[in-house]
């Protein structure tokens, strides 16, 4: 019954339900023939098919996690594992099927995104911009395409890295993703190349970009730099209730990668994502992760600090409203000496929503002179809401410095009174306080996205939705 309510809510909230147009749609439910037909339809090499099959077997053999968010309402048989809504990839807004365009019009795709896609800007048409960016990237030898194309065009690179950092045996949902993945991004940045503009997923428009089982692989070669943004602040409407992505990032010697996520899933979705990066010597990996929406999220971006003097950082924001549970955190595994990590987590719970910080700092034998700093702050907007912290620390070394700070704060009557005494109503005052609370992280996000994030939080706070 509760589940039906969720469904109903999301329908009302976004106020639309567009007819779906698709070329191929697998039957609901998962079995080996679905796995095989996904691979066949994509004309994949044999090794990928075998990987998928192995992963599927592993998925079957693993039981559901008995920790984290409550996943008992997740029904694997009620999910469509593969939909191809247009048979070829489109490269411009104009080429999108009108239903999809209308859908995004209605839910309000971020302006930056829409302006870009619709070619609003006076001098350039979207395709011109898209192509000039691609041309620019190509000149530098940067590969930026969707994962399916990546596999077709660069099978050797993909084969070398795919599933090596997050093998299908990592967890049940990584296995599921490996078995049925579709879409996602493939990025390769050659040695010494700095990509100045952030690579944004919306530059490579395709029908599968909001796929439920995205698979992303980023390789930043020695001394390179790239900022990848997986952003969609518009509520990502999906009729399916499961999003299970896998993201692997390889940061080579002296390279730096920043991966920013701003996502707002519709409130029927289970968002179960595995993200991991590996840093070589002197490399830097930064995850900026903003989670809104969804019914339950379980997501713990991690960095395997393999090379000496490498650094890892996770900045995360989680917002849980009514009937939502955001179980988010980070993992930092120090393999090498002189490595450092930093985790800053901010969570907000409202109307009985629940947030959990779940973190792991692990310092392996030999990883001496390492440094780790964890700070998690929770903000509770009312008495019904809940926040928990589950920090785990394992260290096999003596010469290490680990700091952990945690605070739980309630929006106090005095702060509200102060803002209200200036003429601000209660909702706006709460919105202002929440935005102030996440400000240290919001600052790290490109301006257009932080504005959207700000707007989204105000919308959540105003109670006009949900």
């Amino acid at each position: 019954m509760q589940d039906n309510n969720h469904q109903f809510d999301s329908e009302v909230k976004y106020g639309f339900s567009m007819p779906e147009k698709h070329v191929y749609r697998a039957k609901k439910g998962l079995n080996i023939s679905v796995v095989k037909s996904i691979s066949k339809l994509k004309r994949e090499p044999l090794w990928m098919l075998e990987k998928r099959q192995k992963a599927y077997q592993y998925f079957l053999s693993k039981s559901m996690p008995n920790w984290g968010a409550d996943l008992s309402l997740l029904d694997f048989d009620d999910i469509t594992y593969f939909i191809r809504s247009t048979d070829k990839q489109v490269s411009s807004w104009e080429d999108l099927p009108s239903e999809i365009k209308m859908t995004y019009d209605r839910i309000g795709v971020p302006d930056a995104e829409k302006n870009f896609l619709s070619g609003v800007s006076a001098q350039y048409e979207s395709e011109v911009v898209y192509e000039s960016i691609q041309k620019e990237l190509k000149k530098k030898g940067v590969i930026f395409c969707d994962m399916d194309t990546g596999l077709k065009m660069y099978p050797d690179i993909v084969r070398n890295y795919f599933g090596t950092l997050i093998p299908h045996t990592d967890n049940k949902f990584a296995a599921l993703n490996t078995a049925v993945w579709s879409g996602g991004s493939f990025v390769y940045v050659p040695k010494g190349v700095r990509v100045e503009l952030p690579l944004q997923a919306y530059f490579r428009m395709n029908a599968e970009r909001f796929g439920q089982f995205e698979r992303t692989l980023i390789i930043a070669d020695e001394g390179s730099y790239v900022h990848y943004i997986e952003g969609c602040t518009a509520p990502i409407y999906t009729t399916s209730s499961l999003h299970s992505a896998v993201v692997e990032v390889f940061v080579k010697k002296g390279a730096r990668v920043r991966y920013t996520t701003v996502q707002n899933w519709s409130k029927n979705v289970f968002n179960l994502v595995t993200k991991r990066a590996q840093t070589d010597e002197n490399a830097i990996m930064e995850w900026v992760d903003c989670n809104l929406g969804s019914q339950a999220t379980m997501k713990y971006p991690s960095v395997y600090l393999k090379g000496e003097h490498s650094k890892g950082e996770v900045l995360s924001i989680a917002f849980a409203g009514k009937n939502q549970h955001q179980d988010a955190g980070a993992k930092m595994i120090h393999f090498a000496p002189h490595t450092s990590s930093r985790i800053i987590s901010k969570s907000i719970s409202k109307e009985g929503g629940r947030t959990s910080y779940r973190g792991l700092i692990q310092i392996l034998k030999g990883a001496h002179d390492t440094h780790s700093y964890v700070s998690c702050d929770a903000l509770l907007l009312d008495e019904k809401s809940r926040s928990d912290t589950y920090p785990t620390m394992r260290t096999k070394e003596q010469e290490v410095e680990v700091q952990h700070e945690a605070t739980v704060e309630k929006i106090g009557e005095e702060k509200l009174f102060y803002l209200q005494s200036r003429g601000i109503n209660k909702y706006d005052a709460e919105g202002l306080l929440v935005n102030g609370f996440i400000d240290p992280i919001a600052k790290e996000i490109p301006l257009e996205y932080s504005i959207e994030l700000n707007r989204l939080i105000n919308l959540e706070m105003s109670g006009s939705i949900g």
Partner: protein
Amino acid sequence: MLEVTNLSVSVGRKLILQNLSYIFEQNKTYVLMGPNGSGKSTFAQTIMGHPQYEIDTYSRIFFNKENITSYPVEKRATSGIFLSLQTPLSLGGITVFQLLRVVLKGKKDALSLKREIMKLAKRLNISQEVLNRSLNQGASGGEKKKMEVLQAGILKPKLAIFDEVDTGVDIDALKTISSYLRHFKKNKTIIFITHNSRILDYIQPDKVLILKNGLIIKDGDADLLSFIEKKGFDKL
């Protein structure tokens, strides 16, 4: 302008203001003094509508002839009442500009608001660094009170209550604040709540009120101040 009749206010079971009635006239400057615990801040917060205070059913607050007794806080503010807090709170991640921008949404564009803030900050000797910081975070006593005054200056209320704007402020800051307020008080009703008469060396009040045990026990002109300075509240 501001009229309170039979104002009785309690917190929990403790009665703090007792049947207080008074008319504050338009464009006059008042000083409200009294010993600790006499109910001065309670009076200020009650006028602003702080939810912590319980008002007796007979009590009435009129502002410009409008009965605002049951108005929520923000409606009192938008009607033209401003309260400068005795201990201004710090607001993480919110600058004074962001705060005022929300208040003046749709009334003033961001650019001219920014200009106005900069101008006033200069006058109040508030550094750019303090201006760009989270409001009142890591600020000195003087900086906090200046930020309150700055907000008053931008919001231009009809009635402004300054609760101990002179406390925790060094002499230079006090001079800066009072020289601004001397100009600010024109065409406004002002109530200064204070413990000492230092600020009154700079600002001439029209009336001095003495609050004791939740009652106005005396009102008079500025001469009343010198009497209190010499004899204290006990002799009243």
